[in-house]
Protein backbone atom coordinates (compact mmCIF):
# COMPACT_ATOMS: atom_id res chain seq x y z
CA UNK A 1 0.00 0.00 0.00
CA UNK A 2 2.72 2.45 0.99
CA UNK A 3 6.29 2.16 -0.03
CA UNK A 4 9.25 4.39 0.81
CA UNK A 5 12.17 3.98 -1.55
CA UNK A 6 15.49 5.31 -0.40
CA UNK A 7 14.27 8.63 0.87
CA UNK A 8 16.65 11.28 2.14
CA UNK A 9 15.21 14.16 4.12
CA UNK A 10 16.92 17.30 5.25
CA UNK A 11 16.26 20.17 7.63
CA UNK A 12 18.15 22.95 5.92
CA UNK A 13 21.51 21.40 5.42
CA UNK A 14 21.19 18.79 8.14
CA UNK A 15 20.28 15.36 6.91
CA UNK A 16 17.73 13.69 9.15
CA UNK A 17 16.92 10.58 7.11
CA UNK A 18 19.38 8.48 5.15
CA UNK A 19 18.10 6.17 2.45
CA UNK A 20 15.03 5.03 4.33
CA UNK A 21 13.15 2.24 2.60
CA UNK A 22 10.15 0.55 4.08
CA UNK A 23 6.76 -0.73 3.11
CA UNK A 24 3.34 -1.04 4.65
CA UNK A 25 0.81 -3.59 3.50
CA UNK A 26 -2.89 -2.95 3.37
CA UNK A 27 -4.62 -3.66 6.66
CA UNK A 28 -1.58 -4.16 8.82
CA UNK A 29 -0.19 -2.32 11.79
CA UNK A 30 3.47 -1.57 11.53
CA UNK A 31 5.55 0.24 14.06
CA UNK A 32 8.69 2.29 13.91
CA UNK A 33 10.75 2.42 17.04
CA UNK A 34 13.92 4.27 17.85
CA UNK A 35 15.58 6.58 20.31
CA UNK A 36 14.91 10.29 20.61
CA UNK A 37 15.95 12.12 17.54
CA UNK A 38 16.31 9.00 15.44
CA UNK A 39 14.06 10.49 12.80
CA UNK A 40 10.76 8.78 13.45
CA UNK A 41 8.69 11.93 13.34
CA UNK A 42 10.65 13.10 10.34
CA UNK A 43 9.70 9.93 8.50
CA UNK A 44 6.04 10.63 9.12
CA UNK A 45 6.43 14.26 8.12
CA UNK A 46 8.06 13.16 4.89
CA UNK A 47 5.17 10.87 4.11
CA UNK A 48 2.66 13.63 4.82
CA UNK A 49 4.56 16.04 2.63
CA UNK A 50 5.27 18.59 5.34
CA UNK A 51 9.01 17.99 5.08
CA UNK A 52 9.23 16.37 1.66
CA UNK A 53 12.23 14.17 0.95
CA UNK A 54 14.94 15.65 -1.24
CA UNK A 55 15.60 12.40 -3.01
CA UNK A 56 13.87 9.06 -3.15
CA UNK A 57 10.31 8.08 -3.83
CA UNK A 58 7.18 7.51 -1.82
CA UNK A 59 4.56 5.39 -3.51
CA UNK A 60 1.04 5.16 -2.18
CA UNK A 61 -1.33 2.73 -3.83
CA UNK A 62 0.85 2.67 -6.87
CA UNK A 63 1.05 6.46 -7.21
CA UNK A 64 4.11 8.55 -6.40
CA UNK A 65 3.19 11.09 -3.74
CA UNK A 66 6.51 12.59 -2.73
CA UNK A 67 5.99 15.67 -4.83
CA UNK A 68 2.41 16.30 -3.82
CA UNK A 69 1.51 19.09 -1.39
CA UNK A 70 0.22 18.00 2.03
CA UNK A 71 -3.43 18.66 1.30
CA UNK A 72 -3.36 16.40 -1.75
CA UNK A 73 -1.75 13.66 0.30
CA UNK A 74 -4.45 13.93 2.93
CA UNK A 75 -7.01 13.79 0.17
CA UNK A 76 -5.58 10.43 -0.88
CA UNK A 77 -6.38 9.06 2.56
CA UNK A 78 -3.20 9.46 4.56
CA UNK A 79 -3.80 11.14 7.90
CA UNK A 80 -1.39 11.92 10.63
CA UNK A 81 -1.75 12.45 14.34
CA UNK A 82 1.36 14.49 14.92
CA UNK A 83 3.62 14.48 17.89
CA UNK A 84 2.43 17.01 20.43
CA UNK A 85 -1.18 16.70 19.37
CA UNK A 86 -1.58 20.09 17.70
CA UNK A 87 -5.10 20.75 18.74
CA UNK A 88 -6.58 23.95 17.31
CA UNK A 89 -6.66 25.75 20.63
CA UNK A 90 -9.48 28.22 20.00
CA UNK A 91 -11.76 25.87 18.14
CA UNK A 92 -14.16 23.89 20.26
CA UNK A 93 -13.85 20.15 20.51
CA UNK A 94 -16.68 19.76 18.02
CA UNK A 95 -15.05 22.20 15.61
CA UNK A 96 -11.75 20.42 15.90
CA UNK A 97 -13.44 17.19 14.92
CA UNK A 98 -15.18 18.97 12.12
CA UNK A 99 -11.82 20.16 10.84
CA UNK A 100 -10.72 16.55 10.68
CA UNK A 101 -13.42 15.97 8.12
CA UNK A 102 -12.36 19.05 6.17
CA UNK A 103 -11.95 17.29 2.86
CA UNK A 104 -15.06 15.16 3.17
CA UNK A 105 -18.35 16.12 1.65
CA UNK A 106 -20.65 13.30 2.76
CA UNK A 107 -22.66 15.01 5.50
CA UNK A 108 -24.35 11.81 6.56
CA UNK A 109 -21.13 9.87 6.89
CA UNK A 110 -19.55 12.66 8.90
CA UNK A 111 -22.45 12.64 11.29
CA UNK A 112 -22.23 8.91 11.78
CA UNK A 113 -18.52 9.04 12.39
CA UNK A 114 -19.03 11.79 14.92
CA UNK A 115 -21.46 9.62 16.82
CA UNK A 116 -18.98 6.78 16.67
CA UNK A 117 -16.25 8.97 18.10
CA UNK A 118 -18.38 10.35 20.89
CA UNK A 119 -19.19 6.77 21.80
CA UNK A 120 -15.52 5.84 21.70
CA UNK A 121 -14.46 8.81 23.86
CA UNK A 122 -17.38 9.93 26.01
CA UNK A 123 -15.27 12.65 27.60
CA UNK A 124 -15.08 14.40 24.25
CA UNK A 125 -18.83 14.42 23.98
CA UNK A 126 -18.99 16.04 27.38
CA UNK A 127 -16.49 18.73 26.40
CA UNK A 128 -17.71 19.27 22.88
CA UNK A 129 -18.30 22.98 23.28
CA UNK A 130 -15.08 23.77 25.10
CA UNK A 131 -12.07 25.22 23.38
CA UNK A 132 -9.62 22.48 22.54
CA UNK A 133 -6.77 24.40 24.11
CA UNK A 134 -8.19 24.00 27.58
CA UNK A 135 -8.29 20.23 27.55
CA UNK A 136 -5.78 18.28 29.53
CA UNK A 137 -3.00 16.45 27.78
CA UNK A 138 -4.80 13.15 27.65
CA UNK A 139 -8.04 14.66 26.50
CA UNK A 140 -6.15 16.43 23.77
CA UNK A 141 -4.54 13.20 22.62
CA UNK A 142 -7.93 11.58 22.34
CA UNK A 143 -9.17 14.55 20.42
CA UNK A 144 -6.19 14.44 18.08
CA UNK A 145 -6.75 10.79 17.25
CA UNK A 146 -10.45 11.33 16.84
CA UNK A 147 -9.84 14.25 14.55
CA UNK A 148 -7.71 12.09 12.30
CA UNK A 149 -10.34 9.37 12.32
CA UNK A 150 -12.91 11.91 11.16
CA UNK A 151 -11.10 11.94 7.83
CA UNK A 152 -11.77 8.22 7.45
CA UNK A 153 -8.18 7.60 6.52
CA UNK A 154 -6.99 4.52 4.74
CA UNK A 155 -3.60 4.94 6.30
CA UNK A 156 -3.32 6.43 9.75
CA UNK A 157 0.05 7.72 10.87
CA UNK A 158 0.30 7.92 14.63
CA UNK A 159 3.21 9.72 16.26
CA UNK A 160 3.69 8.70 19.87
CA UNK A 161 0.04 8.45 20.79
CA UNK A 162 0.80 7.34 24.33
CA UNK A 163 2.96 10.30 25.23
CA UNK A 164 1.76 11.84 28.45
CA UNK A 165 -1.22 9.58 28.87
CA UNK A 166 -2.41 7.87 31.99
CA UNK A 167 -1.79 4.11 31.93
CA UNK A 168 -5.46 3.38 31.71
CA UNK A 169 -5.91 5.71 28.77
CA UNK A 170 -2.79 4.43 27.07
CA UNK A 171 -4.23 1.00 27.11
CA UNK A 172 -7.59 2.30 25.94
CA UNK A 173 -5.94 4.04 23.07
CA UNK A 174 -4.07 0.97 22.01
CA UNK A 175 -7.27 -1.00 22.20
CA UNK A 176 -8.90 1.57 20.01
CA UNK A 177 -6.03 1.44 17.55
CA UNK A 178 -6.52 -2.27 17.25
CA UNK A 179 -10.24 -1.83 16.99
CA UNK A 180 -10.01 0.71 14.19
CA UNK A 181 -7.60 -1.54 12.42
CA UNK A 182 -9.92 -4.47 12.68
CA UNK A 183 -13.34 -2.84 12.34
CA UNK A 184 -12.59 -0.21 9.73
CA UNK A 185 -9.68 -1.99 8.16
CA UNK A 186 -7.56 1.10 8.58
CA UNK A 187 -3.88 0.53 7.97
CA UNK A 188 -1.81 1.90 10.79
CA UNK A 189 1.71 3.21 10.89
CA UNK A 190 2.61 3.61 14.52
CA UNK A 191 5.59 5.49 15.92
CA UNK A 192 6.08 4.85 19.57
CA UNK A 193 8.57 5.26 22.38
CA UNK A 194 6.77 2.70 24.42
CA UNK A 195 8.23 -0.10 22.34
CA UNK A 196 6.80 -2.84 24.53
CA UNK A 197 3.31 -1.80 23.91
CA UNK A 198 3.82 -0.95 20.28
CA UNK A 199 5.37 -4.26 19.38
CA UNK A 200 2.53 -6.05 21.10
CA UNK A 201 -0.14 -4.54 18.87
CA UNK A 202 1.91 -4.37 15.70
CA UNK A 203 2.35 -6.97 12.99
CA UNK A 204 5.78 -5.86 11.95
CA UNK A 205 8.34 -3.41 13.22
CA UNK A 206 11.23 -1.33 11.94
CA UNK A 207 14.04 -0.01 14.08
CA UNK A 208 15.43 3.41 13.25
CA UNK A 209 18.81 4.63 14.44
CA UNK A 210 20.11 8.12 13.66
CA UNK A 211 18.16 8.32 10.45
CA UNK A 212 18.86 4.81 9.18
CA UNK A 213 16.79 1.65 9.30
CA UNK A 214 18.87 -0.91 11.18
CA UNK A 215 16.44 -3.72 11.74
CA UNK A 216 13.18 -5.02 10.37
CA UNK A 217 11.24 -8.05 11.48
CA UNK A 218 7.95 -9.41 12.74
CA UNK A 219 6.88 -7.63 15.88
CA UNK A 220 7.04 -10.81 17.91
CA UNK A 221 10.57 -11.47 16.84
CA UNK A 222 11.70 -7.96 17.70
CA UNK A 223 10.11 -8.23 21.08
CA UNK A 224 12.48 -11.02 22.00
CA UNK A 225 15.50 -9.73 20.14
CA UNK A 226 18.32 -9.14 22.60
CA UNK A 227 19.59 -5.92 21.03
CA UNK A 228 16.15 -4.42 20.91
CA UNK A 229 15.48 -5.45 24.46
CA UNK A 230 18.64 -3.78 25.67
CA UNK A 231 18.30 -0.60 23.69
CA UNK A 232 14.58 0.08 23.67
CA UNK A 233 12.72 -2.06 26.11
CA UNK A 234 14.80 -1.15 29.09
CA UNK A 235 15.02 -4.70 30.25
Amino acid at each position, binding site marked *: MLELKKINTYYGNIQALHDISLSVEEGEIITLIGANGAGKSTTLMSISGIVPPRTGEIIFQGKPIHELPP*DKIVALGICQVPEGRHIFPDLTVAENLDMGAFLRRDKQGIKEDLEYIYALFPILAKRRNQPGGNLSGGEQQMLAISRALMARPQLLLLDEPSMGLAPLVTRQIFDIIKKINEEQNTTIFLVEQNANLALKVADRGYVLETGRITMHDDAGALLINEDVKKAYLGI
Partner: protein
Amino acid sequence: MDYFIELFFGGLTRGSIYALIALGYTMVYGIIGLINFAHGEIYMIGAFTALIVSTVLSVFGFPLLAIVILTMLAAAIWASAYGYTVEKLAYKPLRNAPRLSPLISAIGMSMFLQNYVLLAQTPDFLPFPALIPDFPFMERYAHIIGSSDLVILLTTAVIMVLLTFLIKFTRIGKAMRATAQDRKMALLVGVNVDHVISMTFIIGSALAAVGGMLIASHIGQINFFIGFIAGIKAFTAAVLGGIGSIPGAVLGSFILGLTESFATGYVSSDYEDVFAFSLLVLILIFRPSGLLGKASIEKV
Protein backbone atom coordinates in the same frame (compact mmCIF):
# COMPACT_ATOMS: atom_id res chain seq x y z
CA MET B 1 -29.49 67.23 21.67
CA ASP B 2 -29.32 67.85 17.96
CA TYR B 3 -25.66 68.59 18.32
CA PHE B 4 -25.13 65.29 20.10
CA ILE B 5 -26.94 63.38 17.39
CA GLU B 6 -24.99 65.12 14.68
CA LEU B 7 -21.73 64.27 16.37
CA PHE B 8 -22.93 60.75 16.90
CA PHE B 9 -23.64 60.18 13.24
CA GLY B 10 -20.41 61.86 12.28
CA GLY B 11 -18.62 59.44 14.57
CA LEU B 12 -20.46 56.49 13.11
CA THR B 13 -19.46 57.40 9.59
CA ARG B 14 -15.90 57.83 10.61
CA GLY B 15 -16.07 54.53 12.44
CA SER B 16 -17.48 52.75 9.40
CA ILE B 17 -14.68 54.10 7.30
CA TYR B 18 -12.12 52.79 9.76
CA ALA B 19 -13.95 49.50 9.95
CA LEU B 20 -13.74 48.83 6.22
CA ILE B 21 -9.98 49.11 6.42
CA ALA B 22 -9.60 47.55 9.84
CA LEU B 23 -11.28 44.34 8.71
CA GLY B 24 -8.47 43.63 6.29
CA TYR B 25 -5.86 44.34 8.93
CA THR B 26 -7.48 42.09 11.41
CA MET B 27 -7.95 39.23 8.97
CA VAL B 28 -4.36 39.25 7.87
CA TYR B 29 -3.13 39.61 11.41
CA GLY B 30 -5.36 36.82 12.56
CA ILE B 31 -4.00 34.44 10.00
CA ILE B 32 -0.31 35.16 9.77
CA GLY B 33 0.28 37.38 12.77
CA LEU B 34 1.58 40.21 10.62
CA ILE B 35 0.84 43.90 10.96
CA ASN B 36 0.40 44.43 7.27
CA PHE B 37 1.54 48.02 6.97
CA ALA B 38 0.98 47.85 3.25
CA HIS B 39 -2.75 47.37 3.75
CA GLY B 40 -3.34 51.11 3.85
CA GLU B 41 -1.63 51.33 0.47
CA ILE B 42 -3.90 48.66 -0.95
CA TYR B 43 -6.80 50.82 0.12
CA MET B 44 -5.18 53.77 -1.59
CA ILE B 45 -4.59 51.78 -4.76
CA GLY B 46 -8.22 50.67 -4.67
CA ALA B 47 -9.27 54.30 -4.52
CA PHE B 48 -6.93 55.27 -7.37
CA THR B 49 -8.11 52.44 -9.55
CA ALA B 50 -11.66 53.51 -8.84
CA LEU B 51 -10.85 57.07 -9.85
CA ILE B 52 -9.13 56.00 -13.03
CA VAL B 53 -11.77 53.52 -14.07
CA SER B 54 -14.69 55.79 -13.28
CA THR B 55 -13.13 58.65 -15.21
CA VAL B 56 -12.46 56.47 -18.20
CA LEU B 57 -15.98 55.10 -18.09
CA SER B 58 -17.56 58.48 -17.76
CA VAL B 59 -15.46 59.85 -20.60
CA PHE B 60 -16.81 57.00 -22.68
CA GLY B 61 -20.27 58.06 -21.62
CA PHE B 62 -21.49 55.19 -19.44
CA PRO B 63 -24.55 55.84 -17.26
CA LEU B 64 -23.94 56.52 -13.55
CA LEU B 65 -25.23 53.22 -12.26
CA ALA B 66 -23.04 51.25 -14.63
CA ILE B 67 -20.09 53.39 -13.66
CA VAL B 68 -20.65 52.77 -9.97
CA ILE B 69 -20.94 49.03 -10.38
CA LEU B 70 -18.08 48.59 -12.82
CA THR B 71 -15.85 50.88 -10.82
CA MET B 72 -16.46 48.98 -7.65
CA LEU B 73 -15.73 45.72 -9.41
CA ALA B 74 -12.57 47.00 -11.02
CA ALA B 75 -11.32 48.51 -7.77
CA ALA B 76 -11.95 45.27 -5.91
CA ILE B 77 -10.32 43.15 -8.59
CA TRP B 78 -7.20 45.22 -8.91
CA ALA B 79 -6.78 45.81 -5.20
CA SER B 80 -7.10 42.06 -4.67
CA ALA B 81 -4.51 41.46 -7.33
CA TYR B 82 -2.16 43.84 -5.55
CA GLY B 83 -2.87 42.24 -2.20
CA TYR B 84 -2.23 38.82 -3.67
CA THR B 85 1.00 39.87 -5.36
CA VAL B 86 2.32 41.71 -2.32
CA GLU B 87 1.79 38.61 -0.22
CA LYS B 88 3.56 36.40 -2.71
CA LEU B 89 6.51 38.74 -3.15
CA ALA B 90 7.07 40.22 0.26
CA TYR B 91 5.58 37.93 2.87
CA LYS B 92 5.45 34.38 1.59
CA PRO B 93 9.23 33.99 1.36
CA LEU B 94 9.33 35.08 5.00
CA ARG B 95 6.90 32.55 6.44
CA ASN B 96 9.54 30.94 8.59
CA ALA B 97 11.66 34.00 9.21
CA PRO B 98 12.09 35.76 12.54
CA ARG B 99 8.92 37.52 13.63
CA LEU B 100 9.92 41.07 12.81
CA SER B 101 11.30 40.46 9.33
CA PRO B 102 7.92 40.43 7.59
CA LEU B 103 7.04 43.61 9.47
CA ILE B 104 9.99 45.41 7.95
CA SER B 105 9.17 43.92 4.59
CA ALA B 106 5.67 45.34 5.02
CA ILE B 107 7.00 48.79 5.88
CA GLY B 108 9.21 48.62 2.79
CA MET B 109 6.28 47.52 0.66
CA SER B 110 4.21 50.38 1.97
CA MET B 111 6.88 52.92 1.01
CA PHE B 112 7.32 51.28 -2.35
CA LEU B 113 3.65 51.34 -3.22
CA GLN B 114 3.21 54.94 -2.11
CA ASN B 115 6.04 56.07 -4.30
CA TYR B 116 4.97 53.84 -7.13
CA VAL B 117 1.63 55.59 -7.30
CA LEU B 118 3.26 58.96 -6.75
CA LEU B 119 5.55 58.41 -9.72
CA ALA B 120 3.14 56.66 -12.03
CA GLN B 121 0.33 59.07 -11.32
CA THR B 122 0.84 62.30 -9.43
CA PRO B 123 1.79 63.63 -6.02
CA ASP B 124 -1.09 66.11 -6.15
CA PHE B 125 -4.55 65.74 -4.80
CA LEU B 126 -7.07 64.71 -7.42
CA PRO B 127 -10.77 65.36 -7.21
CA PHE B 128 -12.86 62.25 -6.88
CA PRO B 129 -16.31 62.31 -8.48
CA ALA B 130 -19.28 61.84 -6.19
CA LEU B 131 -20.35 58.34 -7.14
CA ILE B 132 -23.05 58.38 -4.53
CA PRO B 133 -25.67 60.95 -5.49
CA ASP B 134 -27.64 62.90 -2.90
CA PHE B 135 -30.80 60.89 -2.43
CA PRO B 136 -33.89 63.11 -2.49
CA PHE B 137 -35.44 61.35 0.47
CA MET B 138 -32.40 62.19 2.55
CA GLU B 139 -32.73 65.94 1.98
CA ARG B 140 -34.67 66.42 5.22
CA TYR B 141 -31.83 64.91 7.22
CA ALA B 142 -28.98 66.34 5.20
CA HIS B 143 -27.83 68.58 8.03
CA ILE B 144 -27.38 65.53 10.23
CA ILE B 145 -26.38 62.71 7.97
CA GLY B 146 -25.57 62.77 4.29
CA SER B 147 -26.42 60.23 1.65
CA SER B 148 -22.90 58.95 1.33
CA ASP B 149 -22.64 58.57 5.10
CA LEU B 150 -25.72 56.42 4.95
CA VAL B 151 -24.32 54.27 2.17
CA ILE B 152 -21.04 53.83 4.02
CA LEU B 153 -22.82 52.83 7.22
CA LEU B 154 -24.99 50.30 5.44
CA THR B 155 -22.12 48.85 3.45
CA THR B 156 -20.10 48.34 6.59
CA ALA B 157 -22.98 46.62 8.30
CA VAL B 158 -23.62 44.32 5.37
CA ILE B 159 -19.98 43.47 4.94
CA MET B 160 -19.57 42.69 8.58
CA VAL B 161 -22.50 40.31 8.55
CA LEU B 162 -21.27 38.62 5.39
CA LEU B 163 -17.78 38.30 6.71
CA THR B 164 -18.89 36.85 10.02
CA PHE B 165 -20.93 34.35 8.14
CA LEU B 166 -18.02 33.54 5.88
CA ILE B 167 -15.65 32.94 8.77
CA LYS B 168 -18.05 31.00 10.91
CA PHE B 169 -19.84 28.80 8.48
CA THR B 170 -18.11 28.37 5.19
CA ARG B 171 -15.35 25.97 4.33
CA ILE B 172 -12.88 28.66 3.53
CA GLY B 173 -13.77 30.36 6.79
CA LYS B 174 -13.09 27.23 8.76
CA ALA B 175 -9.86 26.74 6.88
CA MET B 176 -8.90 30.30 7.76
CA ARG B 177 -9.51 29.78 11.42
CA ALA B 178 -7.60 26.52 11.43
CA THR B 179 -4.68 28.07 9.57
CA ALA B 180 -4.67 30.98 11.97
CA GLN B 181 -4.32 28.73 14.97
CA ASP B 182 -1.95 26.02 13.84
CA ARG B 183 -0.57 26.17 10.36
CA LYS B 184 1.15 22.79 10.38
CA MET B 185 -1.91 21.01 11.67
CA ALA B 186 -4.08 22.76 9.12
CA LEU B 187 -1.87 21.22 6.46
CA LEU B 188 -2.29 17.84 8.10
CA VAL B 189 -6.05 17.95 7.92
CA GLY B 190 -5.84 18.79 4.26
CA VAL B 191 -6.07 22.56 4.18
CA ASN B 192 -4.16 24.20 1.35
CA VAL B 193 -2.56 26.82 3.54
CA ASP B 194 -1.02 28.89 0.76
CA HIS B 195 -4.38 29.10 -0.88
CA VAL B 196 -6.07 30.13 2.35
CA ILE B 197 -3.54 32.86 3.04
CA SER B 198 -3.89 34.15 -0.49
CA MET B 199 -7.65 34.18 -0.09
CA THR B 200 -7.33 36.15 3.11
CA PHE B 201 -5.28 38.80 1.37
CA ILE B 202 -7.67 38.85 -1.54
CA ILE B 203 -10.75 39.28 0.59
CA GLY B 204 -9.11 41.86 2.84
CA SER B 205 -7.88 43.81 -0.15
CA ALA B 206 -11.24 43.74 -1.88
CA LEU B 207 -12.85 45.15 1.26
CA ALA B 208 -10.22 47.85 1.45
CA ALA B 209 -10.89 48.75 -2.17
CA VAL B 210 -14.60 49.06 -1.60
CA GLY B 211 -13.77 51.20 1.39
CA GLY B 212 -11.34 53.24 -0.64
CA MET B 213 -13.90 53.95 -3.29
CA LEU B 214 -16.67 54.88 -0.87
CA ILE B 215 -14.46 57.06 1.24
CA ALA B 216 -12.89 58.83 -1.71
CA SER B 217 -16.30 59.51 -3.10
CA HIS B 218 -17.41 60.79 0.31
CA ILE B 219 -14.44 63.09 0.79
CA GLY B 220 -14.10 64.02 -2.85
CA GLN B 221 -10.34 63.82 -3.24
CA ILE B 222 -7.42 61.41 -3.06
CA ASN B 223 -3.67 61.35 -3.31
CA PHE B 224 -1.01 58.71 -2.86
CA PHE B 225 -0.67 59.31 0.86
CA ILE B 226 -4.25 58.72 2.03
CA GLY B 227 -3.55 55.10 2.85
CA PHE B 228 -0.97 55.81 5.46
CA ILE B 229 -2.99 57.89 7.90
CA ALA B 230 -6.20 55.94 7.45
CA GLY B 231 -4.19 52.75 7.79
CA ILE B 232 -2.69 53.69 11.13
CA LYS B 233 -6.07 54.66 12.51
CA ALA B 234 -7.71 51.52 11.21
CA PHE B 235 -4.99 49.45 12.73
CA THR B 236 -5.48 51.20 16.06
CA ALA B 237 -9.16 50.40 15.80
CA ALA B 238 -8.45 46.76 15.07
CA VAL B 239 -6.22 46.49 18.11
CA LEU B 240 -8.73 48.32 20.26
CA GLY B 241 -11.33 45.75 19.38
CA GLY B 242 -8.98 42.84 19.83
CA ILE B 243 -6.86 42.09 16.85
CA GLY B 244 -7.83 38.99 14.95
CA SER B 245 -11.49 39.41 15.83
CA ILE B 246 -13.88 40.48 13.07
CA PRO B 247 -16.60 41.95 15.28
CA GLY B 248 -13.80 43.40 17.37
CA ALA B 249 -12.48 45.35 14.43
CA VAL B 250 -15.89 46.83 13.76
CA LEU B 251 -16.57 47.62 17.39
CA GLY B 252 -13.13 49.11 17.82
CA SER B 253 -13.63 51.25 14.74
CA PHE B 254 -16.95 52.60 15.95
CA ILE B 255 -15.58 53.36 19.37
CA LEU B 256 -12.61 55.11 17.86
CA GLY B 257 -14.78 57.07 15.42
CA LEU B 258 -17.21 58.12 18.13
CA THR B 259 -14.45 59.06 20.54
CA GLU B 260 -12.83 61.26 17.97
CA SER B 261 -16.12 62.84 17.04
CA PHE B 262 -17.17 63.60 20.59
CA ALA B 263 -13.69 64.66 21.61
CA THR B 264 -13.71 67.17 18.79
CA GLY B 265 -17.25 68.25 19.47
CA TYR B 266 -17.08 68.68 23.21
CA VAL B 267 -13.41 69.28 23.86
CA SER B 268 -11.17 70.28 20.99
CA SER B 269 -10.07 68.82 17.72
CA ASP B 270 -6.56 69.91 18.59
CA TYR B 271 -6.28 66.82 20.70
CA GLU B 272 -8.51 64.53 18.68
CA ASP B 273 -5.78 61.95 18.08
CA VAL B 274 -4.47 62.30 21.58
CA PHE B 275 -7.88 61.22 22.79
CA ALA B 276 -7.95 58.35 20.34
CA PHE B 277 -4.60 56.99 21.38
CA SER B 278 -5.17 57.61 25.07
CA LEU B 279 -8.36 55.64 24.81
CA LEU B 280 -6.40 52.84 23.23
CA VAL B 281 -3.84 52.83 26.01
CA LEU B 282 -6.53 52.95 28.64
CA ILE B 283 -8.53 50.11 27.17
CA LEU B 284 -5.49 47.94 26.71
CA ILE B 285 -4.42 48.52 30.28
CA PHE B 286 -7.69 47.12 31.51
CA ARG B 287 -8.20 44.60 28.74
CA PRO B 288 -4.76 43.64 27.48
CA SER B 289 -6.15 41.77 24.49
CA GLY B 290 -8.55 44.44 23.32
CA LEU B 291 -12.30 44.61 23.78
CA LEU B 292 -13.32 41.39 22.09
CA GLY B 293 -9.93 39.71 21.93
CA LYS B 294 -9.49 36.55 23.90
CA ALA B 295 -7.91 37.16 27.23
CA SER B 296 -5.60 34.26 26.82
CA ILE B 297 -4.01 32.82 29.90
CA GLU B 298 -1.37 30.71 28.34
CA LYS B 299 -1.74 27.11 29.44
CA VAL B 300 1.61 25.71 30.37
